[in-house]
């Protein structure tokens, strides 16, 4: 809608007025400046502090002449990362594979079960206790049993990672499916929508922001599940994921390699979080409160 020109000044409000020093509000100027500084600090500060921490780490090792089999300096860790890159990247690939497969199964299983729960209150009452029990029982205490009962090591790892990752997807999606606007639900009834139409046109879109919130958590948890499961599975198998490399390096007192593998896991976790956040942002930016910029 077009705004009328201001009748008092004849000025179009869309154009900035000529600078009249008496019109400058020092309070507002100060707030605007603070906002600009904050915008820069948001990415600069973590970088500076991170660099400082690495530098301090390096200095502490050098000043105290700490042997590298106790605490390697950052330089040595990076060097090891580069020298062992073939070995470590191969392991990273295996860990990633398990993580993403588990995440995929968690999404399919979590959303599928949530849809089932949304269709039938009785199904939810009957099965949600199992989901909660699976969630609250620490995976390290279930994993040994899983590796006894399941021959295939890959399937065992996958199952562990899945158990850890699927609950946030299930819980969030269930909540989302139920949180559809009640007037829109009435409208669906009035227009005689089928169950399926109601699910596709109302419940699933309503659940999308909740699901994506669950996915962000599940992504990190799938990685944790994959790593923890591999620890429990031990070195006895054919496994050679990053957790296996850390264990192996530990036995050999190859501390720099332990650090290198650890850093790779951390970076992977951050990247997964970044990727899921990006997916959520792209999916919601057109319409959802969480992704909108306030003016």
């Amino acid at each position, binding site marked *: 809608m077009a705004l009328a020109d201001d009748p008092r000044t004849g000025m179009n409000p869309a154009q900035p007025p000529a600078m009249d020093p008496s019109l400058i509000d020092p309070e507002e100027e100060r707030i605007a400046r603070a906002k600009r500084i904050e915008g820069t600090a948001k990415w600069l500060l973590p970088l500076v502090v991170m660099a400082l921490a690495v530098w301090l780490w390096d200095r502490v090792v050098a000043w105290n002449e700490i042997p590298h089999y106790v605490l390697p300096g950052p330089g040595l860790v990076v060097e090891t990362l580069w020298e062992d890159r073939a070995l470590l990247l191969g392991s990273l690939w295996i860990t990633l594979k398990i993580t993403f497969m588990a995440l995929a199964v968690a999404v399919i299983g979590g959303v599928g079960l949530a849809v089932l729960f949304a269709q039938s209150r009785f199904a939810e009452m009957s099965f949600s206790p199992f989901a909660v029990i699976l969630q609250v029982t620490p995976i390290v205490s279930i994993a040994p049993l899983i590796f006894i009962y399941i021959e295939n090591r890959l399937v065992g790892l996958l199952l562990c990672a899945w158990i850890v990752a699927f609950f946030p997807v299930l819980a969030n999606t269930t909540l989302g499916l139920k949180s559809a*606007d009640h*007037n*829109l639900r*009435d*409208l*669906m*009834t*009035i*227009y*005689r*929508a089928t169950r399926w*139409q109601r699910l596709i*046109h*109302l419940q699933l*879109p309503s659940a*999308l922001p909740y699901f994506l919130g669950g996915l962000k958590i599940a992504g990190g948890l799938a990685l944790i599940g994959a790593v923890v499961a591999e620890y429990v599975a031990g070195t006895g198998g054919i496994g050679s994921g990053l957790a296996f490399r850390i264990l192996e390096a530990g036995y050999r007192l190859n501390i720099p390699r332990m650090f290198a593998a650890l850093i790779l896991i951390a970076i992977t976790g951050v990247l997964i979080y970044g990727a899921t956040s990006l997916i959520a942002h792209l999916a919601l930016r*057109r*319409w*959802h409160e969480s992704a*909108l910029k306030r003016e």
Partner: protein
Amino acid sequence: MAQPDTSTEPILRLRQVDKTFAGNIVALRGMSMEVRQGDFISLLGPSGCGKSTALRLIAGLMRATHGRLDWPGGGEGDLGVVFQEPTLMPWATVERNVWLPFRLRRQSLAASRQTIHEALALVGLEGFEKKYPRELSGGMKMRVSIARALVTNPRLILMDEPFAALDEITRQRLNDDLLSLKAKTGATVIFVTHSVFESVFLSNRILVMAPRPGRVIEEIDVPEPYPRGDGWRNSHAYVEMAARTSNALQRALHPESEGV
């Protein structure tokens, strides 16, 4: 056709309809009314008088405890609905929101587009097809909601206090537009409201309702024919009808003072 058609059968008839909720709460007692093609009927009353219950019964969202709801010409459920909130799908554009009733009938967007644009033009929203609800003001969202209710050209449109949450100026403008819309399309409307002025301004019949138990205590005809011109809001007849309706509403609020 802008005038209510009294010559033929009503499209909807309520006979002695009661609704009792669990715990013996009587929401509605002995409601009877006839809705004819072209009627604009207001259900006016304070909170708890059963006006929204009546609307939900007609919408088929609940069933009457006693009494009958008949659709003499058939067409039960051929409805458009406007709620107090715009009730749009935030993830869909204006166009796709208005498409919903067609979509649920498995009619493609391409096949519906012409009708959707006509409905949007009727509510003054040409050119907003691709906008998302969040990009619109409260009044514009309500217009989209009205377009969605109109788009299938239903036999009956139900409106449940559609403008109650809007500011006074937007509300007046929407009332003006609803009146001209009514004149243009000849739509049949049941309109729930708290406002005496709104009910007199818009409708040809007002059912004044009272609470505990919810019931109709007075039926007021507003004889002013459609289309109602620009002068209607300031006319003597309007002021007189408003005073009369206001008195009836007073009786609904304070039955003891009238010795009923």
